């Protein structure tokens, strides 16, 4: 701890910090998804943005919440990607389970989203499992108001045949989303206040059968959020206070349990962050966050109650020095996470400290290099993370970018159920959820190498492609061979954890963007990844990620107020070894192998009243294929979504 404070003192005595880093823009392997792209695709929820993330994989059990894997940096078992709103870290997860729909912002507040796809230091965080930074809109001057309403419906209802021999299950609505907000803005400050409601319905038989086992009365999960943001332009930069909370009555799929558990989740966040600019070549960035994430009881037949709360204190201080060709960063962070189960009188703290430094150098007119070092200390253990990135400007021949990283990760950094279980916490389900651990869970190591080439041939055609390598070493992998209980439609299996698991993965991608006519753009994207060496259990788990992915996107905007967007997505088959017995036990209802996905979507958007009203209709999966991501998940077919957004800017 003393070293931490010494470092803080050191930072304050040293001329510090900067704001936006122009060198970083070229060095960072990232994807930016803009509001225009989100609108074109007719997306209604925050997690829906991942549909547009080329290098991220996801799966969904209920069609609403999504588990993510960024650019082959992790399998689906660890959900440790970092989430930010306007550069401020948001920890809405409980254990290491994240549902980014629980972020207290609605889709119509999003200006753009940055996805960081390789390990690096970003806003004081090390992005070894990827990062999502959602930037909210800056409101128009004066008083403004907005409303958003969206609804989705899956086809395949019984209709009038419900009362005949042709009766079939009711698949009902996909979701209902409502949001509203007001803002007040002047030259020097603005205030945003917003609220949202999201509902999701467990009507698909494959989910509803399990949910009904614990919760027979109702099938609706509901979430309400409020969000406030105060931004003040002072001290040479923006100073921001973000306050948000979310209450979520959810059918929470908890993998160790094997099924959905009705829970009452509550998340609140209060954070202050900003940038101070004491000189032309220095700036200071700071962030202080208090947040809590609770998972409590929602009535259920077995009286299951996690009775769990995580209280998070987080502070960061960073300084930058910069010139035209140089950007230096040094910073430190401190986090105290308290895990608490009041009924069990369980309360333990987990402290994490980090120190980091980064240097971006323009070594010549056409060559930029960046190096970063990030040290994490917790419980007397230290993990080192670092990277070296290069960017070559090849002039008319394009550019070449490389990234080499090495990341150690402590078990404490995951702060997942297994960590707290080892500290003495266990939730109250009858089954024994203490895992059988083979060996000791130690510090894991990840080596990555990425090489990208890109070229803009002219203003209408651009091309990029790249290759990647991942080496996971000393990871711990969960294994559960689920057994199906027909009388309850439920799954259960004891958990085994295999330590010292290793894996090597090779990948590649290619992307072409071509503008046929000024208002018609198209994009073709293909990616490949495959493990080629490693521990058998790790290789089995990695098969949950598709080997091949292909997408074709076309966006036609004949005028600024009208557009048609279409996308075809293909993902190759995936295998979920945890469900290897499920097919046999369920008469092939839940098969271990999930068939390839071929999904085509069409979205039409129209602005009205001089861009005050925006209408959208989205037809997803128009070929009516089975859209299924995991054996026990929903099989979504053709569905349609409607949404309306009203933006009344500067009404006073």
């Amino acid at each position, binding site marked *: 701890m003393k070293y931490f404070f010494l470092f803080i003192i050191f930072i304050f005595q040293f001329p510090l910090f900067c704001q936006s880093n122009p060198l970083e823009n070229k060095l960072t392997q990232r994807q930016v998804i803009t509001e225009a792209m989100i609108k074109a695709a007719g997306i209604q929820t925050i997690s829906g943005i991942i549909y547009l993330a080329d290098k991220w994989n996801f799966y969904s059990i209920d069609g609403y919440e999504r588990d993510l894997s960024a650019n082959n940096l992790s399998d689906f078992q660890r959900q440790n990607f970092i989430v930010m709103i306007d550069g401020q870290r948001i920890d809405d997860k409980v254990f290491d389970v994240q549902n980014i729909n629980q972020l207290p912002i609605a889709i119509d507040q999003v200006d753009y989203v940055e996805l960081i796809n390789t390990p690096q230091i970003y806003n004081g965080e090390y992005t070894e499992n990827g990062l999502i930074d959602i930037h909210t809109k800056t409101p128009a001057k004066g008083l403004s108001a907005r409303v958003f309403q969206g609804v989705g*419906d899956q086809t395949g209802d019984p209709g009038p*045949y419900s009362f005949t021999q*042709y009766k079939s299950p009711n698949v009902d609505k996909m979701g209902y989303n409502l949001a509203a907000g007001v803002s007040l803005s002047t030259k020097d400050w603005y205030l945003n206040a917003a609220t949202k409601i999201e509902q999701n319905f467990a009507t698909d038989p494959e989910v509803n059968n399990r949910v009904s086992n614990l919760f027979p009365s109702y099938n609706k999960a509901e979430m309400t959020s409020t969000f406030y943001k105060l931004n003040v332009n002072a001290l040479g930069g923006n100073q921001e206070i973000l306050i948000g909370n979310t209450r979520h009555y959810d059918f929470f799929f908890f993998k160790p349990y094997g099924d959905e558990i009705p829970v009452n989740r509550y998340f609140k966040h209060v954070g202050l962050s900003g940038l101070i600019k004491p000189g032309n070549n220095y700036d200071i960035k700071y962030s202080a966050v208090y947040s809590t994430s609770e998972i409590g009881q929602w009535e259920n037949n077995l009286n299951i109650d996690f009775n769990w709360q995580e209280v998070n204190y987080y502070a960061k201080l960073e300084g930058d020095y910069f010139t035209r060709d140089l950007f230096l960063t040094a910073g430190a962070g401190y986090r105290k996470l308290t895990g608490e189960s009041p009924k069990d009188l369980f309360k333990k703290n987990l402290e994490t400290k980090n120190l980091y430094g980064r240097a971006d150098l323009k070594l010549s007119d056409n060559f930029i290099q960046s190096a970063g070092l990030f040290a994490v200390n917790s419980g007397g253990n230290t993990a080192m993370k670092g990277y070296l990135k290069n960017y070559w400007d090849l002039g008319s021949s394009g550019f070449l970018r490389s990234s080499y990283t090495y990341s150690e990760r402590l078990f404490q950094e995951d702060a997942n159920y297994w960590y707290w279980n080892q500290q003495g916490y266990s939730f109250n389900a009858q089954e024994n959820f203490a895992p059988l651990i083979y060996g000791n869970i130690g510090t894991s190591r990840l080596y990555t190498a990425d090489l990208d080439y890109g070229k803009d041939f002219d203003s209408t055609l651009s091309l990029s492609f790249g290759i990647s390598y991942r080496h996971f070493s000393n990871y711990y992998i969960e294994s559960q061979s689920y057994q199906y209980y027909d009388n309850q439609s439920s799954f259960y299996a004891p958990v085994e954890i295999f330590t010292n698991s290793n894996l090597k993965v090779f990948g590649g991608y290619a992307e072409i963007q071509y503008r046929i006519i000024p208002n018609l753009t198209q994009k073709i994207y293909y990616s490949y990844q495959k493990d080629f060496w490693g521990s058998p259990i790790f290789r089995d788990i990695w098969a949950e990620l598709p080997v091949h992915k292909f997408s074709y996107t076309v966006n036609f905007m004949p005028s600024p107020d009208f557009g048609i967007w279409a996308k075809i997505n293909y993902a190759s088959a995936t295998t979920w070894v945890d469900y290897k017995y499920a097919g046999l036990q369920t008469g092939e209802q839940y098969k271990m192998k999930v068939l390839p996905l071929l999904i085509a979507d069409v979205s039409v958007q129209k602005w009205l009243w*001089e861009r005050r009203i925006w209408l959208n209709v989205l037809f997803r999966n128009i070929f009516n294929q089975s859209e299924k991501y995991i054996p026990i998940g929903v099989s979504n077919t053709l569905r349609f979504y409607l949404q309306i957004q009203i933006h009344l800017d500067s009404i006073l």
Partner: protein
Amino acid sequence: MIKSELKLIILLIITFLFFYRDAFTQSINNQYSFTRINLDIVGNKSTDELSRLWDAQKGFEGSVEMPFYYGNIQVGVRYIPYKENEYFYHDFSTFYYFAGWGKELNLPFHFRWYNGFKVGAYAMAFHDDSLTIYQKDETELAAGLNSRVSVEILKNIFLNAAADYTAVFTHKRIELFLISAGVSYSFKTPIWLKEFLK
């Protein structure tokens, strides 16, 4: 085997491409220049299972139509009630809220021929007091093609005759073949409405 959805999509694409040839020759300055209100009586000529189990009554369709890019856009609603027959399933009413797009061609002798597609929400309300509130209503996606011949009998007043195919994407598909006849009135779109639509 090509699924019915795929067949419908191919038909929609062919319809679009058929008119796409002159798509860029028509000035988009013509957009929203006139408004046409259509009122029609609709009769069911379907032979599917739905029409066997219920008797479709005469229905009504009202729509508003105006130039939109390379053709005309329509928004409207169609109402058709279904009565029990010898199978004694309870009555229900259908409301089809749709938006559509198509192209109208001028023919000799003041005739016009419109071909296009419609997409919308097909709402069904079941009339039985024994049903719960959740069972009384259901909404499903519907889409289809329509063709209309009209003749201008008086200035800005038209007589219409149309045929319509609508597929409702219920678990067991509903396929409706409808014919309709009615009148239309066309007028110059008010400036305030044009401004709103832009």
